[in-house]
Structure formats: C-alpha cells, structure tokens
C-alpha cells in the first residue's frame, strides 16, 4: 500500500516536473547565423549581393553552435547577450595563450608584440583593467568602456588584416582596409604546407604593408590617442604640443615604426643595431649582462616600444638631422657594404655618402 502511494506521489512529481521542463524548453531559443540571439538579427546577404558568411575566425565555423560560444541566449551579461563581458580577454586567451600552438599573444607574438607582464621592461595595453579614454593623448576620445581585445579586433571577422576593427572608439577612421605585411611564419611550416587545413596559414607581420597602410594604421591608433596624429613640426590643435611626425607614409614616421600594438618586454626590445638579448647571448654574452644592457630605463616605462630607450632615434638620425655621435665599431667594411651593423649609403637629400644602420631598413 505505502509503496503504491509512494509510486503515485513520485509519478505526480514527475508529471509536474516534465510540465516544468516542457515550459522551460519552450522558452529555449535556437541561435542561427542570421539570428544569433533574441533581438539580434544579421542580414544574410551582404552589400555586394553575396551570401553574408558572417564568418568568425579560426574555430568559429559558420554554424549555429559557434555563435553560442560568445553570445548566450539567456545568460548574457550585456545588451548584445555576450557571455563574456567581464572575462572577454580570458576567452580570447583560452586559445591565444599558446595552447593552440600559434598566435600566442603572451609569447613573442607574430608582430603585435606581447601581453606578457612577467619579464623586465614590460608595458602593454592593459586590457580588462583600464578605460578607453585613459589613453595618453586622448582628447576627443571620451569612451568610458573598458579596453578589451574587441576594442581593436572584431572577433567576427573583418576586411582588415588581423581582424582589426573598422570603427574604433566610435570613430570610423578609414574605409579602405588595412593590409599588413604578412608572410608565412616558418616556425609553423608544417601547418602551412599541409594541404588539408582548409587554407589555414599561420603568418607573421612586420607592420603595415604599403605606404597607404602606414597612414591608415596611424589613423587606427589615433582613434583613441587622437591628439598624437601629427605632421612634421606642426603644433597639435588639440594638445598644443609639438610631436614627431607620426602620420606619414615614409618609413619611421607611423606608430608601427616605433611601437608594438599589444605591448613589449625585454625579450622583444631591440637596440639601435636591431639586436635582441637572444642575439647577444648567442654571441657569447652572459644573460645577466645582456639584460642589463637592454633594460629600458625611461622615466615613463617602455611604452610598448620596439626599441629600447630612445635607440630607435639614432637608427634613423645618422642621415636626416644627424647626431654627432661616432658610429659603433663593427666587423666588416662599411665602404663596400659588408659592415655588420652599418654601411655608407648614398643620400640624394644630402648629396653625399652617409653612415646608415642596416636596421634602418627594418623600420616600417
């Protein structure tokens, strides 16, 4: 008798439960590429009449599952139903921490620099902890949102290389896509040469590709650092300060000439001759000595620089506005182009041979 009774109540509970379950699943929403979350609709045909792939990068295939990785249908923390508002960079770093092998933004980087804070002389865009309008040089930029990976990148894909956003901090800085000087990364030759990877190529970058891209790249950085965009010898109308040329298509006068986009540390910093700690250790220096030599001692820190201290300035200013510092001793003869660090190069501007660091050619 009591058994039957128990059975009944259990049945009753089950019925109730299943009613609840049915209720709950009726409220469930199935995301699709054109409707990834309730209230978010995306056109399926783009401006050119092609099917809008809305292709997300890497693993995010264009299937319904992929949108759900970042957009939650019921658990969203923000208006765009993003699951990861507070932990967005953690999401990106689930893959970009080296566990996918390539594009480790905590390692040496593939051109963007590093977000690694564990070495000396490190500085970086502190994603997740600072406001966008805390950017040095921000004048018109009043955006209070937190700086995130997605402040600069569009995880859904972009016509710009490296998924760089077209509109940053509310400013559409250009309508022509930024192309970067990307080459296949020999460290991943095995992946790149595999014919079965649906075209996956792991590339590295040395910065903006063509002259126009250098200007656009500077405009990209200056969406946030808006008063830092400067021509030669002009006073900024915004800050009243003078600045080095930063907006030119000539080598050495755009942000990527002197700065990494993500950040820097002592393992990445170069000296005037373009050498790194690793080069000096390979040449027989003690590691400690090399680190002391390369350390950035600037009052303002290493400021995402590619070169330590002000060494980049000398790399260039042996010709235009030359410094009267003697060129360093080196192996080879600078008169016949075999100088290891520098050689005499003809300057049409000064109409004479000028000592020129070989590294100058590597400055974007």
């Amino acid at each position, binding site marked *: 008798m009591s058994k039957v009774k128990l059975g009944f109540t259990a049945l009753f509970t089950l019925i109730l439960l299943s009613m609840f379950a049915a209720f709950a699943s009726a409220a469930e929403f199935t995301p699709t590429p054109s409707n990834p979350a309730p209230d978010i609709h995306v056109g399926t045909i783009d401006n050119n009449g092609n099917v809008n792939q809305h292709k997300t990068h890497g*693993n995010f295939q264009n299937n319904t*599952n992929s949108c759900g990785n970042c957009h939650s249908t019921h658990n969203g923390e923000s208006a765009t139903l993003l699951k990861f508002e507070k932990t967005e960079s*953690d999401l990106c770093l*689930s893959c970009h921490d080296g566990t996918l092998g390539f594009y480790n933004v905590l390692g040496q980087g593939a051109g963007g620099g590093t977000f690694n804070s564990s070495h000396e002389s490190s500085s970086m865009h502190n994603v997740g902890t600072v406001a966008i309008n805390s950017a040095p040089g921000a004048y018109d930029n009043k955006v209070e949102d937190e700086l995130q990976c997605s402040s600069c990148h569009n995880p859904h894909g972009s016509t710009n290389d490296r998924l760089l956003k077209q509109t940053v901090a509310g400013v559409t800085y250009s309508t022509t896509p930024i192309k970067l000087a990307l080459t296949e990364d020999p460290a*991943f030759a*095995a*992946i790149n040469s595999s014919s079965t*990877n649906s075209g996956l190529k792991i590339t590295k970058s040395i910065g903006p590709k063509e002259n126009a891209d250098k200007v656009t790249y500077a405009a990209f950085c200056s969406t946030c650092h808006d008063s830092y965009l400067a021509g030669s010898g002009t006073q900024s109308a915004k800050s009243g300060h003078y600045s080095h040329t930063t907006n030119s298509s000539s080598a050495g006068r755009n942000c990527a000439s002197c700065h990494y986009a993500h950040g820097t540390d002592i393992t990445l910093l170069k000296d005037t001759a373009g050498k790194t700690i690793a080069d000096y250790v390979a040449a027989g220096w003690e590691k400690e000595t090399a680190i002391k030599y390369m350390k950035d001692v600037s009052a303002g820190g290493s400021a995402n620089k590619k070169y330590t201290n002000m060494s980049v300035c000398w790399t260039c200013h042996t010709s235009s506005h030359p410094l009267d510092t003697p060129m360093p001793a080196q192996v080879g003869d600078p008169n016949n182009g075999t100088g290891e660090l520098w050689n005499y190069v003809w300057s049409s501007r000064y109409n004479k041979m000028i000592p020129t660091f070989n590294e100058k050619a590597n400055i974007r």
Partner: protein
Amino acid sequence: MKKVTTYIWMSAMVVLSVALFSAITLLDLGPSLKPIVAAANPTSGDPEFRQSFYGSFEEPLNKPMDVTKIGELIYVTDTKNKQVQVFDQSGNNVFKFGKEGADEGQFQFPYGIAGDKDENIYVADMYNGKISIFNTKGEFIKYFPDQDKVIQSPGGLRIYDEKLYVTDIKENKVYVLNLEGKKLMEIGGSGQDEGKFIAPNAVAVDKDDQIYVTDSGNNRVQIFDKEGKFVRIINGSKDGKGTPLFVNPRGVGVDSNGTVYVVSNLSHNVYAYDKDGNEVLVLGGMGTENGQLYLPNGLYIDDRNAIYVTDTINQRISIFY
C-alpha cells in the same frame, strides 16, 4: 486512535506532501536533493557534482590548467601563478611548490601533470619546453631525460605502466617514452587528416592500452591502438563523421567502464561517451554555481572513477562521481 485524530493526521500528511512536492518543483530543489540520496549509495548512478577545491586563501588558483591524483593527494597546475598547488581529499590546501622563471624548479606555463609509481611529480612546462620532476616534498629532482631531445612544447602529460605520454602542441605530435627517456613511439604531425593533429592538448590511455588524444584545433578526440594505429574519432556527432559538437576540446579521460569523458572548453561542458561512441551524459554547463563550469580545461579520472575538472574562470577544481 480516534477517528478525528486520524483525519487530522491524514490531512496533515496531504498538506505536507503537497507543500513538499511543490517546494521541490517550484524551488527547483530536485538536483540538490539527489546527491544526498546518491551519496548513501555511491556505487550506482551517473556521476554528479560533489565538491570543489579553491586553493589557498591568500593565493587562490589562477587559471588551473590540469589536475592529477598521486597517492592520496591531488596536484593542480596553477598556471597563472606559475606553481603547483597540492590538496588532500577533503580539499585542504596542503602545500605548493614552484615559482616563476626558466631555471630548475621554476615555471612559465606549467601544464600537464602526472605521477610515477614512486609518487614523483612530473610537470610539463609549455613555454620552458621541459618536463620537470619533483619529489613528494615538492623538491626539484631533475628534468625528464628526453634522450632524443624530441619534446619542444609539452602540453598534456600522463604516465601509465611506466610509460610517459606527452602531447607536443607546436610539433602537433604525441610522444610515448619510457621513464628513462627513450622514445618508444610517436603519433601525429600537422594537419586535419585522420591521425594528424592541430594543437593536441591532452592524452589518456584506457585499460586496453588504447590512446586517446584531444586534437583541440580540429575539435575532436582521436583514438589509436597501442601500436599507434588510428582507430576512430569522437567529436560529438554520430560516428564522429559529422560537424563537431566540441568547441576547443581539452582534457580527456577514460573510467574503468570504458566511458570516455571530454572537456569542451568553449561550451563549458564535459561530455561522456560509452564504448560505442554514444553520448551518455553531459556535465557542467556555463556558470558559476556548484557543478557549473566556466572555460574548463584539464580532466583526470582516478581509480575510483572520480572525475576532476579544472575550471579556469571559477578558479577551482570540481569533482564529479
């Protein structure tokens, strides 16, 4: 008993059971009641959430990437803190070892962790490119003597039957070595074909010596026989031939019944498959509540079939059995 008393008792019972069951259903207490029942009878039923370990009070776990049990202690690679934290079975933090750096006893990205029969602890460091061996006191003994210098960027690490299984994430290979460091076998190479990998992150071995490799970049787990010959794929679709259900799969383990557990990092779940590849269970789900996961990564199954999962954002190890 008087008739009236019986009526009172009976109606009280009705009221109480209605109240009880509506409480259970309305307040959704179902799931939280179940463990008590199951705990009384731990040998039957599906594994379910039991407990979480959080790390020491002053230094909570920060991006725990892998976990293992050696002897009676639980060892966790506390990756962002660049150390290993050690717990007893009730979750008390017993001690920790290692600090940041590239020298002996130091870590930059401690990842896979495993123990040998003498209870020495092996820790793979993906950035330093080495496997370090520590004694039970957490003192550095030596680097794993990789005789042929094959290991470049070690990720997943397990030891079964005196053999070390390690995934090399950049090389896209799995190496099997004996504990003297001699390479016995290698599987893989870069690519999407069967038997090839993109970023293999974890490895496990079942009691028939079949080798399970999480092929993270290709969103699948591949199974090999003990000679390293490809057997089949698990990716959450029927027969492993359709679109993968996994998104960025990570930890993998096999329990004593042959059930395979796979962590799907970006869907915040652990999926379980029987020997024939049918899905039998899903654990986790995105969230911060007990039993939920938030970007889970490592998975270890002990000899009592308890499942340990590292939960990187919730900064804890969750245990299911």
